[in-house]
């Protein structure tokens, strides 16, 4: 009974933003149609769709060869490259944007070097669509790359051998065998990329490219008085649903498992070509991680040099570090605990309860952070004023947004537990509690730890939710970077950005280089 009550309350809390927005919209449906048919909304929609499409295409083009080279060839240092290539994911989009502007902006570092040696004029503008595509591709390609690494690790070369011995040419083998077998992985990676791009606020704001999130933010804080915020939120949600629908269609039509017990998992010998491919395999991590970090270090050193002191650079930073780690850690702990309870209830298969809980757990996927933030602001102001601008709302926002990220690995770990293991434990004389501890808890621990680390990193970097839902006066590394970056004081962001990357980058690297990733089936 307690379980059912908990599940119902949990489901209602998770669906709060979506229920609130759609109830509000339904009550003013005429206004909604007047609003969305307006020219500006059409333009924002086209911008958002174009950005998603270009980033997904470019991220796939980078990830496919990169994952193959790192996992299935004898590329030099491939063991390290597998992990290094994921590092751009540790950069918050607003940090990636500031550093890339510094590098490629009309009068950026690239311009300085070219001008010095070749006397070239200012580079073309980096702002707008092109810059946003580059920045978001560099940050999101690991979402496709990680999945492809796992797929290529299991990819059975015997399929290629069979195709060739059946008379198929290399292009036919690629189009009919290799591509369809990796397609589901590309599709699920693309889903994450698309949702990330649709939710991104920091990069597009700094690169001045008008998308849904910018429109929502601007309207919320403009003088018009919130007009249209919920309407744009609902369009953004519809797009997210549409993307989820397309991805689920691709997945349900696919059969990409290997039925082989003697799969050919050999490593392809590239011969001398391995040294030629190496620089290409390094480009994404150089552009997406090394150069941004070098820019931050350059800013940091310049800051010390110009100011002649550390005071300005480290102004308030220690309290920001402490508050960032504290709020992220507490949130990660609460969210992981709730996710684990939810997964265990889903596993119990309590008729409709487990079904509903499973569906609503993923609701955060279809809600950009800014949409969750806005709906919670409106909801708390109107109905529970007492918790408005408290940590409760902030953690609630994190919970709704990041629950899918933690529930996936936890569920994957728990679902891999063979029910016969529990039965075996009972027959060996262990009671329910000991069996639960020895079998469920111990075997699902890698997935739970991974989920916890993931949500911790997400909370560290999250901008719109923290910016909008934080209590007054509460500042984190993300919000302090944003306040300097949005005023174009990029140099002031150096220390905070470096610390943020360090905190997020270490677990990311360790996870990819450790066999934890294999244990949770990634």
């Amino acid at each position: 009974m307690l379980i059912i009550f908990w599940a119902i309350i949990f489901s209602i809390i998770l669906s709060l933003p979506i229920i609130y927005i759609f109830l509000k919209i339904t009550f003013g449906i005429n206004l909604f149609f007047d609003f969305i048919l307006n020219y500006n909304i059409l333009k924002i929609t086209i911008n958002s769709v174009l950005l998603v499409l270009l980033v997904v295409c470019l991220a796939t083009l980078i990830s496919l060869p990169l994952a193959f080279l790192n996992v299935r060839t004898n590329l030099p240092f491939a063991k390290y490259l597998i992990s290094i290539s994921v590092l751009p994911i540790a950069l918050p989009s607003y940090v990636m944007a500031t550093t890339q502007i510094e590098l490629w902006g009309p009068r950026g570092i690239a311009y300085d070097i070219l001008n010095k040696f070749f006397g070239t004029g200012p580079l073309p503008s980096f702002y707008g669509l092109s810059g946003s595509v580059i920045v978001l591709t560099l940050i999101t390609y690991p979402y496709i790359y990680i999945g492809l690494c796992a797929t290529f690790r299991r990819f059975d070369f015997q399929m290629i051998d069979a195709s060739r011995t059946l008379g198929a040419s290399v292009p036919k083998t690629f189009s009919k065998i290799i591509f369809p077998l990796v397609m589901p992985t590309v599709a699920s990676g693309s889903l994450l990329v698309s949702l990330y791009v649709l939710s991104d606020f920091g990069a597009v704001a700094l690169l001045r490219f008008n998308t849904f999130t910018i429109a929502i933010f601007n309207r919320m804080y403009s003088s018009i008085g919130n007009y249209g915020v919920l309407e744009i939120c609902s369009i953004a949600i519809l797009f997210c649903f549409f993307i989820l629908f397309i991805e689920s269609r691709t997945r349900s039509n696919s059969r990409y498992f290997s039925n082989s017990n003697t799969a050919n998992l050999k490593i392809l010998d590239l011969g001398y070509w391995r040294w030629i491919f190496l620089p290409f395999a390094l480009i994404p991590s150089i552009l997406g991680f090394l150069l941004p970090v070098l820019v931050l270090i350059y800013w940091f050193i310049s800051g010390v040099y110009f100011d002649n002191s550390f005071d300005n650079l480290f102004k308030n930073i220690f309290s920001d570090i402490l508050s960032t780690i504290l709020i992220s850690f507490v949130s990660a702990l609460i969210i992981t605990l709730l996710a684990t309870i939810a997964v265990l209830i889903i596993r119990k298969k309590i008729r409709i309860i487990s079904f509903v809980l499973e569906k609503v757990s993923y609701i955060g996927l279809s809600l950009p952070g800014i949409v969750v933030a806005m709906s919670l602001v409106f909801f708390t102001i109107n109905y529970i004023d007492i918790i408005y601008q408290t940590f409760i709302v902030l953690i609630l926002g994190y919970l709704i947004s990041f629950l899918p990220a933690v529930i996936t690995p936890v569920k994957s770990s728990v679902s891999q537990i063979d029910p016969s293991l529990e039965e075996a434990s009972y027959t060996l004389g262990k009671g329910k509690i000991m069996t639960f501890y020895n079998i469920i808890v111990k075997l699902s621990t890698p997935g739970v730890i991974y989920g916890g680390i993931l949500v911790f990193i997400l909370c560290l970097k999250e901008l719109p939710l923290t910016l909008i839902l934080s209590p007054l006066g509460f500042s984190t590394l993300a919000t302090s970077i944003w306040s300097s970056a949005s005023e174009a004081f990029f140099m002031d962001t150096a220390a905070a950005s470096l610390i943020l990357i360090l905190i997020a980058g270490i677990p990311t690297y360790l996870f990819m280089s450790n066999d934890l990733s294999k244990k949770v089936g990634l």
Partner: protein
Amino acid sequence: MIKDNKILQIEEITFSYNRNEPILDDFSIDVNEGEFVTVLGDSGVGKTTLFRAINGLEKIENGYIRVDGNLMSSSFYHLPPEKRPVGTIFQDYALFPHFNVEKNIYYGLDKRNFDKNFVDEIVNLLRVENLFDRYIDQLSGGQRQRVSLARSLVRKPKLLLMDEPYSNLDKNLRQDIRRDLKKIFSKMGSTVLLITHDSEEALSLSDKIGYLYKGKIIQFDTPYEIFHNPLHKIIAKSISNSNILEGTPSNGKIITKIGEFIISEKITSSNNISINVRPNQLSLDHTGNKYEIVEEEFLEGSQLYLVKDTENNHIISISMIGENDFSVGDKVGVQIINNNANLIDIS
């Protein structure tokens, strides 16, 4: 172009991943049209490499491979796998999981130009047409094998190459399928080269068996000869669990510790030689106590005993049919039932 009834000719091919240790070392074998030949050998002796060299998935360093008289591989030439008239059955069948059975079977055919009647004939013969809409995960082991065979045969290969195709099937199914396939191959007149480690499979299916050891064929003969007159200790041990006994030639007989044996080969020297004595040529009795039973196993209808010579600790295997009262720990004597043995090269 060389053209006779030899479908596969392999002449002194060499292949190595590491130059110091060749996997295939001057390997040669011929397979005639309509023949079912098996290359038998333990794990790691180069079976899979041979399989991959014949279907073009690996390049050879020396020698040549011809199929139907046409050069496929040599040190200076390599015809890609897709151009070879070789049908391949992989160990796990390598059926494409994202295609249904029909698409798997039609995959290797040129859609504008193929013999529809022949395809229908194969599909009927292998009883796969009612599986056309199924995906691979919906097929049993036997069905997968039939689909894989149909997929290869519809392309009318000159040679069918099979790599341990029965290893994933349970024993009963394996026997049924073996019988089934034997009929199909003889009806179609297919030329087949099977690569396996399973001696039972090789003995029951093949017209000829080549025993592969350290990259070379050490005996190429009919199943009868391989079973009854293995030329090497390794073949005798692996095929019939045989005993290799040391003896001294004397008056046309070989004197061993167990007793006297006759061999068909003429021996001129008086030096010690090794002979092959199968377990069913010996039996136990209660009259002696020179041997001790150390292990007992019921194997394929007969009782197999491992007995230890108490003088030198040599182990001898003896198989006996029918009930008896011997058990582990008994002190026993050994009798010769059949004294025909064959000479063995123990090098």
